[in-house]
């Protein structure tokens, strides 16, 4: 056992170098680092880390195999419950999940589960590739999955492993959902997403892109086409705006638009056609991971970047690591400030953003202290672009064309928390489409539960007949 009290450090690009390129920031463990870190796991009896993981990865087991340098076996154990390990190891908020529950964390830093997961997946990709992926034998049952984001991909992975013939319908031209259009290359390289999707394809999952369900095809059509069950994992993709004056000015983006141009359309690369402005000074509004991603992308596009957030650092929903990375890269934080208006020039282009200082009052329904404006404290930040990263809301395209599918008061698809069952027979849902914007791993957990419900539903249906 390794008694080292802190995590084995992971090499990363220097802040002042990485803030001008889109290459991955964290560079990953080598074999020695991984083995050293794996030896910190005490393989405790109650395994709280496993409970902390929404897809219940068999954590001490795969870490044990790393310690023994049996990297292939570690990969087998890891992927028995997780179809996207290279993704999860990179983007999960482990501090609130597996690592948050690690016994070693009570007295020092927890075992770096995420880094080890990432190492295992990357090692396997590098040394074994996915040329000989085992294709499970078909059980003859067809399931349709709508949306190729984390929820849909996980559901597809679990069902194909059980022998189902899975078809995933995706509205965009690339699979991955937020993994391809939202999370930037420097946090999650797109070839890693493509690789994990390729593994699913080799297992037999069929992807049909550019099909917007609710427009090109309706859920009832899918049943007519012989699908026995449908999983909806369409996410919460509609951007929110603040509804302040000046939001229609030229140069005001939603974070979804800015990030989609950069990540999905690769607007930062000159060999791709989609344009993006090289703005000089960018104001980003919000305090979540999306706001951090937008800040760091704008910085890499050469802008001086100001983050505007209405609460204090303590209340920021972004991962601590992302906030630190943004600070190191030179993002200027204006905490306890809230935009009141965006000002434009005679061409209707953004000229500046007017913000008001805030102070924290009593806690609100979310438990966070409610920010209250300080009268007369307005000031202007000159900028030529504003990116709104204040959250997303739900998309009703599918609901509008699917009789019998009910929504919750908040506009999400009504689905049972444990099974994912919606109000329509045979239709299951999970991820942000149900809960509103949450995390990748929670969506994966929901996809996993739904896969097991769909299996029960189809098997049960067979028994009845």
């Amino acid at each position, binding site marked *: 056992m390794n008694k080292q009290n802190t995590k084995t450090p992971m090499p990363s690009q220097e802040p002042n170098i990485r803030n001008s390129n889109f290459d991955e920031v964290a560079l990953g463990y080598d074999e020695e680092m991984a083995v050293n870190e794996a030896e910190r796991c005490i393989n405790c009896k109650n395994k709280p880390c496993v409970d902390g993981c929404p897809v219940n990865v068999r954590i001490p087991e795969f870490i044990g195999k790393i310690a023994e340098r049996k990297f292939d076996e570690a990969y087998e154990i890891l992927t028995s419950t997780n179809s996207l390990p290279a993704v999860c190891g990179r983007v999960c908020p482990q501090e609130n999940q597996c690592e948050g529950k690690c016994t070693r964390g009570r007295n020092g830093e927890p075992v770096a589960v995420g880094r080890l997961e990432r190492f295992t997946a990357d090692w396997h990709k590098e040394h074994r590739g996915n040329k000989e992926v085992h294709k499970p034998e078909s059980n003859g049952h067809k399931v349709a999955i709508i949306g190729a984001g984390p929820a849909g991909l996980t559901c597809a992975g679990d069902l194909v492993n059980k022998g189902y013939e899975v078809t995933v319908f995706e509205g965009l031209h690339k699979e991955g959902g937020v993994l391809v259009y939202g999370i930037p290359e420097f946090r999650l390289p797109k070839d890693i997403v493509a690789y994990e999707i390729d593994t699913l394809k080799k297992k037999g999952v069929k992807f049909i892109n*550019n099909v917007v369900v609710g427009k*090109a*095809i309706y859920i009832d059509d899918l049943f007519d086409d012989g699908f026995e069950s449908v999983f909806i994992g369409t996410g919460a993709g509609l951007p929110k705006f603040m509804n302040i004056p000046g939001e229609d000015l030229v140069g005001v983006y939603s974070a979804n638009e800015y990030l989609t141009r950069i990540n999905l359309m690769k607007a930062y690369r000159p060999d791709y056609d*989609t344009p993006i402005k090289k703005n000089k000074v960018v104001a980003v509004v919000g305090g979540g991971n999306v706001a951090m991603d937008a800040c760091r992308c704008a910085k890499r596009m050469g802008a001086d970047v100001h983050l505007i957030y209405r609460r204090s650092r303590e209340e920021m929903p972004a991962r601590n690591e992302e906030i630190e990375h943004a600070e190191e890269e030179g993002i200027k934080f204006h905490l306890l400030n809230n935009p009141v208006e965006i000002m434009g020039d005679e061409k209707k282009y953004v000229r500046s953003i007017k913000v008001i200082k805030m102070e924290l009052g009593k806690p609100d329904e979310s438990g966070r202290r409610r920010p209250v404006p300080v009268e007369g404290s307005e000031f202007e930040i000159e900028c030529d672009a504003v990116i709104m990263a204040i959250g997303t809301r739900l998309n009703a395209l599918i609901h509008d064309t699917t009789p019998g599918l009910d929504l919750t008061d908040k506009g999400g698809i009504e689905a049972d928390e444990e099974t994912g069952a919606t109000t329509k027979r045979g239709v299951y849902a999970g991820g942000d489409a149900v809960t509103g914007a949450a995390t990748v791993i929670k969506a994966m957990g929901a996809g996993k539960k739904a896969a097991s419900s769909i299996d029960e539903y189809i098997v049960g249906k067979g028994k009845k007949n």
Partner: protein
Amino acid sequence: MHKIVNKKQLNHDMFWLEFEAPYVAKKAKPGQFIIFRVDEYGERVPLTMAGSDKDKGTVTIIFQSVGRSTKLLSQLEVGDSILDVSGPLGKPTKIDGLKRVCVVGGGTGNALAYPVAKGLADSGVKVDMVSGFKTEELVVLEDEFKSAVDNFYLLTDDGSKGEKGFTTDKLKKLIEKGNIYDEVITVGPPIMMKFVCEVTKPYNIPTVASLTALMIDGTGMCGGCRVSIDGEKKYVCVDGPEFDGQKVDWDKLIARNAYYKDEETEEIDHVCNITGGVRHYE
């Protein structure tokens, strides 16, 4: 991949393409659009459909080669494929309850107005079509319009073909002559649509404008195509593309549409270098 099965060149820079897109063809209705991406490096570009064939599983588009993407698209030949086609997107043209309408098309807008005018006429609506072009060489779809609609009025700015003048003047004359329209539908450059709305306003004729905005996903995900309708934020891709023209903030729309003009000009120059390389289709 969407194989091109038919191609016609309508004038020196306008093209008619029919390609395979079975999912789109199945549900497509007049007024709806597609988003295409020509190849792996391509951008996503919206185009209103000119027609669709359920049985053949094909969709047709009419487009003008104005920038990098439409130029690349125009270089594709029968047998080549468009990488991505998504659709049908947007809301279809509302036809219910209309008895007589006037459709006003300008320039490339005529290509987009054609399926709308034909769709209306096919549903039993009486259609007057006012079709405007800069000059004779640019005139397209004349025969198609003639056989589809009840009255067809062709205009050119310089009088080289049809009547001399602007669509707005012709529309005004038709109204003043006593023609009663339940609705005027206009498709074309925003500035023309703005003026059409100014013509119809004093007569209180409901006027529908089919807006073109910068788009990326086309499913309501990014808000890049947002417009201000009566002071309210609307997305052209999911709430439109057709809106009450009297309520559109035209100046904002025109300003937003011009945002990437510099980048676009750069791009066109760039095409010349690149067509000799990997993206050369001939």
